[in-house]
């Protein structure tokens, strides 16, 4: 039993950190600083714990409900690092937007906890709880600019749709329970060896759909642009990175809780694959084509993250028969998180008027006002477009290779064409920064050391991983998905 707790150390540390931060924020309501520091320490500690001792082989705790494996620990560590970067990089935003609620930080931590458990969970019930533990803080955080109607609207939309899909997820798991008599994934896996039962597959389908909603794959993506636009920018960043990664890893795990190798599931496998294909290509097409019509930078990034969902789904499709699949998804998630962290942290620097979000116009002639910001933006945009010598190239490389390995040639060709369309949008932004003289309407950008550091670190990673991805790929290759 003690051994189990040993294994759980990172989560325990995180949880206690949450309690501490909560305590501080209850006591010291007037200033955010102490809460911020304790939150920062918490996530850093968690990251250290989770990266320090990755177990040689996976351990299942709580009668197999929780998986302590290299994957789950990597997810926890990664999310903690992301959280740390956001805590460090977006303090100035809260001050500027007068978000004087210190609850921000422990909610953020709870979100991280939920996400990490979602990845680690091997039990549908636990997954549901983790999902909600991740979502509820997200709903509140989105609505954190309380006297801004846009923020509230975003939060409410997110809440209603999220709640509905949560119910759908629950319905699905109840069907699975009905079909197999258990909520334990491994049990379900063994159960579905001959798994031709409609009920089981129906339940599985609903569960997967719920997660496709979470990762905002078209046509379940509608909430994303609105919520991203309405939410406070740091929260948008957190959703784009932490929630997306957690949901994707959860999605893969849940997809593979059905044993697709068994003969009874052939028809269902085809259905699932074509559903994912449709979702992938729809996300790519919608995301990239709408992206180029956007005037709001934040919305543009929202649609761009929809296209990234599409690419990730390519990797998921590749994961069906090849183990390279999960690696490619991990590579993509890592790269994507790094670059969008950078991008959203930079976005928090834009002093946009509250009623209209940050417009693309605000970028015009930035090279004159701040060559450095321009350089950082350019790096991140190029990376999103998948240009060489940025991590974005290797992320695309891995998912394309994976899904070609899965035999999805046509899909990849379509994706490639969408890449060009998307590249246009990024290039347009870059052109605004570098090739135009500043427009009078252009809003200006504030300076904040914390966020600068975070952005520089992110950019550094983007370039470093773009030139020498060996270590990253090697490391992620060592992280298997355990059925």
């Amino acid at each position, binding site marked *: 039993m003690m051994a189990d707790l040993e294994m759980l150390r990172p989560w325990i540390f995180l949880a206690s950190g949450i309690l501490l931060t909560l305590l501080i924020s209850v006591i010291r309501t007037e200033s955010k600083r102490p809460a911020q520091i304790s939150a920062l320490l918490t996530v850093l500690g968690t990251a250290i714990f989770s990266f320090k001792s990755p177990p040689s082989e996976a351990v299942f705790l709580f009668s197999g409900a929780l998986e302590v494996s290299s994957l789950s620990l990597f997810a926890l560590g990664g999310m903690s690092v992301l959280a740390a970067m956001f805590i460090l990089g977006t303090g100035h935003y809260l001050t500027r937007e007068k978000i004087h609620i210190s609850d921000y930080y422990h909610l953020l931590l709870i979100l991280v906890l939920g996400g990490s458990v979602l990845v680690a969970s091997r039990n549908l019930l636990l997954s549901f709880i983790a999902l909600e533990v991740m979502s509820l803080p997200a709903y509140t955080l989105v609505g954190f600019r309380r006297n801004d109607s846009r923020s509230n609207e975003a939060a*409410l*939309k997110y809440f*209603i*749709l999220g709640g*509905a*899909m949560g119910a*759908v997820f629950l319905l699905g798991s109840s069907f699975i329970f009905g079909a197999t008599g258990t909520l334990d994934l491994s049990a379900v896996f063994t159960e579905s060896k001959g798994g031709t039962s*409609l009920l089981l*597959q*129906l339940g599985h*389908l*609903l569960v997967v*759909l719920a997660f496709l*909603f979470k990762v905002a794959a078209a*046509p*379940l993506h*509608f*909430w994303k*642009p*609105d919520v991203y636009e309405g939410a406070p920018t740091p929260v948008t960043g957190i959703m784009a990175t932490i929630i997306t990664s957690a949901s994707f890893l959860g999605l893969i795990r849940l997809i593979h809780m059905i044993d697709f190798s068994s003969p009874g599931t052939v*028809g*269902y496998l*085809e*259905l699932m694959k074509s*559903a994912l294909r449709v979702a992938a290509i729809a996300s790519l*097409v*919608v995301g990239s*084509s*709408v*992206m*180029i*019509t956007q005037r709001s930078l934040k919305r543009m990034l929202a649609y761009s993250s929809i296209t990234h969902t599409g690419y990730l789904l390519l990797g998921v499709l590749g994961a069906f028969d090849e183990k390279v699949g999960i690696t490619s998804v991990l590579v993509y998630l890592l790269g994507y998180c790094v670059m969008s962290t950078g991008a959203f942290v930079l976005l928090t620097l834009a002093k946009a008027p509250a009623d209209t979000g940050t417009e693309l116009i605000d970028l015009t002639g930035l090279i004159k006002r701040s060559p450095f910001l321009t350089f950082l933006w350019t790096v991140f945009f190029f990376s999103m477009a998948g240009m060489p010598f940025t991590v974005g190239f290797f992320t695309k490389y891995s998912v394309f290779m994976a899904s070609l390995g899965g035999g999805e040639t046509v899909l990849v060709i379509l994706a490639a064409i969408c890449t060009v*369309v998307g590249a*246009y949008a990024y290039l347009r932004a870059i052109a605004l920064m570098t090739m135009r003289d500043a427009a009078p309407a252009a809003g200006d950008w504030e300076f904040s050391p914390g966020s600068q550091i975070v952005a520089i670190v992110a950019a550094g990673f983007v370039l470093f991983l773009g030139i020498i991805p060996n270590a990253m790929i090697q490391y992620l290759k060592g992280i298997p998905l355990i059925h």
Partner: protein
Amino acid sequence: MMITLLVLLPLLGFFLNGFYHFSAQARKTEPSVVVAGVIGTIALFAAFALAVVAWLSLGKSGAWDVGIEERLFSWMKLGTLHVEFGYRLDRLSGIFTLVITGVGSLIHLYSIGYMENKGSARYFAYLNLFCFMMLNLVLGSSLPLVFLGWEGVGLASYLLIGFWSGEMANIMAAQKAFLMNRVGDLGLLFAMFIAFKFAGTLDLADLSSYSFKPEVATAFGLLIFLACTGKSAQIPLFTWLPDAMAGPTPVSALIHAATMVTSGIYLLARLNPVMGQSPTVLFVIAAVGAGTALMSAITACFQSDIKKVLAYSTISQLGFMFVACGVGSPETGVFHVMTHAFFKALLFLGAGSVIHALSGTQDIFKMGGLRSSLPLTFWTFTAGWAAILGLPPFSGFFSKDGILHESLVAAHGSRVIFAVLAFTAFLTAFYMTRLYILVFFGQSRLSEGVRKHVHESPIVMTLPLLFLGLAALAGGWFGAPVRFESGHHGGVGEVSPYLIMVISVFIAAAGAFLGYRKYFRSNHSEKTRDPFRVDEIYTVVFGRGTEMVASFCSRFIEEGVFQRILQFSGAAVDLGGNLFKTVQTGSAQGYLLMMVLAVVALVCGLIFGVHGYGN
């Protein structure tokens, strides 16, 4: 290395004069015509001397047909292709070399008097460049080297026609010459490709000894002939030559009368054995030659610009030479090239001296009665006139009479061609006499301003006239310098050459008499006409035609299709984006509805598709 040296001397002159030109420019002074002229003339005289020496040594070695060869380096070596950069001097190229350097140096000398200081260094540089290229053309041992000279002389003539570049008209004339020659050059280019594909060599010696398949020989011959029509201003590519008179008169004498325009004859004579392999080619050559001769002779009768008359007569004379090649006795053609070089250069220089004296007047109806004021010019011009008419004992008599005779009796001769040539000879006599009379006899029709400055040209100009006059007189006495194995005589069988002589002299006399009767007393001016209007037709068909095709491409295909495609693809993507945006209504329930529809669709897919319930 003698041959190489004589080729390189003019190049040296070119560089020296070019350097002189720029150094003068840097000092913001005009170069002195004397210095520049002396540089250029010496280069040519030296080349001439070397040519004579080489010719003599050739005679000593007796290798008239094998020739002396000098290989310099390997130019292009690729696969089985191996092009040596080298020169070969044999009887044929020897004759041409002597003519080029000899006449060339005289004309250089003449130019010293003719040109003024401004831009003189440039002028002589170009002139030297031309001689260099021309020598490459005739001495080159392989077709690519001939081609080098071939396009090189085109370039030089472009530069010299457009020498007075202030006038856009001159530039246009130069451009016309260059482009029409380019069309011809294409023929030579493709002839080379065919030669390499079938004979596997481009060396002239090997090539002329190679026997092609008949149809290949025809194609090769026609392509070569196309090139020749370009250079030698035959139908269909002859309209550039009259315009080329825009250049300085000595240039017209050297390039557009004596040397460059005869390079077509050189090529045909050089490749005579191959040409002989295809009767078709020979027939075409003869027919085109005769046609051109007649046509341009007729046109010449309607010209009032002294240089234009001479230009058309040049075209006509070239037609004679082509006929000679076509009927299968190129040696007479080459003979006529030589004599023609003498008397036509003489005529042009004479005309130049007249123009010089009349400070730029070129209209023969504004001249007259210059006999007394320009005695030297008059007498030398008379020699040229007699020579081109073919009056014995002038050089033209022998060569022209030779061609007439051959056109009847040679392997491919025929009565028709003879008749055409005879009539052309008659016309030639007519329009030359017309020119002669109108310029030198009758009462003067000079305008007041001009009349005051009328003066005989300086010695540097008259000296070449004298030399050329002698050549025009005696150039034909030693008979044709070249002999080919032109095979058995076919045609219409034996005809006595003396009969032909009598006929041709009679024709010339008749033409001359007619011209005398018509113009000796008359002083009413005639306006220039081109009875065939070929030039206009070309301008419309090719000039406008190209313009139209080009504008069609740029307006309809490029703008209309390719650029439009780009715009459309952009617009299409934009449209798609806006289309997808329309479902983003902002209403949570709308979103939910669509999500539910998606879910329901999938569930139905599962139930009815996979598990096949309901069917």
